[in-house]
């Protein structure tokens, strides 16, 4: 177990170890939903919320259920994905029941989140890096904010991209990839600030 403080992990997860720009997770929805700022903002908020909550639930499930039962080594994949799917479904039902306005704003993004690999990825990193509870919470929140930051920046860039002249073979996703590469390079400028492995 490392003893980096939870706050350092939170900052690192946003800037130096951004889950999208340095770990490449959550690319699918990043590519599809970054056309408009409003969509990106909604999805970013939903991802941050779900990621924070599922990291906490998965931490509890792993350390208080799977480890005592000695099945943590081969069952945690399936338990984590089940927890994420169930949690998303539950949140969708609760929001629909109590806040129809929020449901219309956020609801359409929720099913997309189950298959967002950043959520499962954050839970797996938490296990591999042997985070404590506080560190896991920091990592979950930080990763969510980091992912939202990346998709918001990309949505802004893509609106400008509409006015530019893209070479024919690069049209579509190829140019987005190249731009993301430049963005990742820019984020590497934060690298000396804090680091987590």
């Amino acid at each position, binding site marked *: 177990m490392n003893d980096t403080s939870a706050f350092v992990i939170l900052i690192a997860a946003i800037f130096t170890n951004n889950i999208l720009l340095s770990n*490449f997770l*959550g690319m699918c929805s990043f*590519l599809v939903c970054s056309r408009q700022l409003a969509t990106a903002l909604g999805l970013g908020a939903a991802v941050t919320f779900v990621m924070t909550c599922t990291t906490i639930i998965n931490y509890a499930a792993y350390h208080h259920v799977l480890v005592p039962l000695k099945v943590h080594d081969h069952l945690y994949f399936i338990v984590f994905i089940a927890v994420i799917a169930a949690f998303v479904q539950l949140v969708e039902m609760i929001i629909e029941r109590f806040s129809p306005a929020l449901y219309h704003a956020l609801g359409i993004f929720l099913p997309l989140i189950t*298959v967002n*690999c950043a959520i499962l*990825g954050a839970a797996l990193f938490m296990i591999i890096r042997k985070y404590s509870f506080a560190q896991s919470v920091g990592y979950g929140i930080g990763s969510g904010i980091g992912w939202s930051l990346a998709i918001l920046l990309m949505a802004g860039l893509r609106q400008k991209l509409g006015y530019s002249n893209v070479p024919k073979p690069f049209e579509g996703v*190829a*140019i987005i990839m190249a731009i993301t*590469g430049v963005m990742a*390079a820019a984020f590497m400028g934060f690298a000396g600030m804090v680091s987590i492995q």
Partner: protein
Amino acid sequence: MAASMAPGGACAAGQCAGRCAKALKDGTFTENPVCVQILGICSALAVTTRLANALVMGAALIFTTGMSNLLISLLRNATPRRIRMIAEVAIIATFVIMFDQFLKAFYPAMSKQLGPYVGLIITNCIVMGRAEAYAMQNPPLPSIVDGLANGMGYAAVLAVIGVVRELLGTGKLLGFTVLPPTVYTPNQAMVLAPGAFVVLGCALAVYAVLKAPARQEAKA
């Protein structure tokens, strides 16, 4: 999206062979999961720092897509529609766990390097996509071919990116020095995150150029 729906699942020999051939060609080239459908990008970027990692990841995906397509197709008439997603995820996760345990037992060093990305095959859209789009509607034999072909299409793209990144990033291939430091100064950026995005972007552009004549023929 590739083949037509199978009526009842009966599969005459000739029709079946034709469908298998189409599944093979679609999966590996014309409908390449990475280049055309832009699926499975996460791991395509993450594990391609070295060719060896890319090859193992490709093998993992060929195994998982093939086997899960086969099993999902066998169970397709017994699976209630409402819970099919859960059933698919459970089946896929089973095969992913099998592969993960295999790596941990026989190649622990490789398992450590791939880290969470083996587990993340569960949320790899290619596997889920093929299960949903193909295996749910087609008999077992074309389904397994479709799964293997899509796995191979993914593996081929990964291998290409792996070669470019390892060669330009370290001057080596599979750990052997190809370009000695006197001839070529390794460019660290290729191994780091920005290199991954740029190389994949260029790979997509090259694929678009390669595919352009085929598309024009189809139109004519």
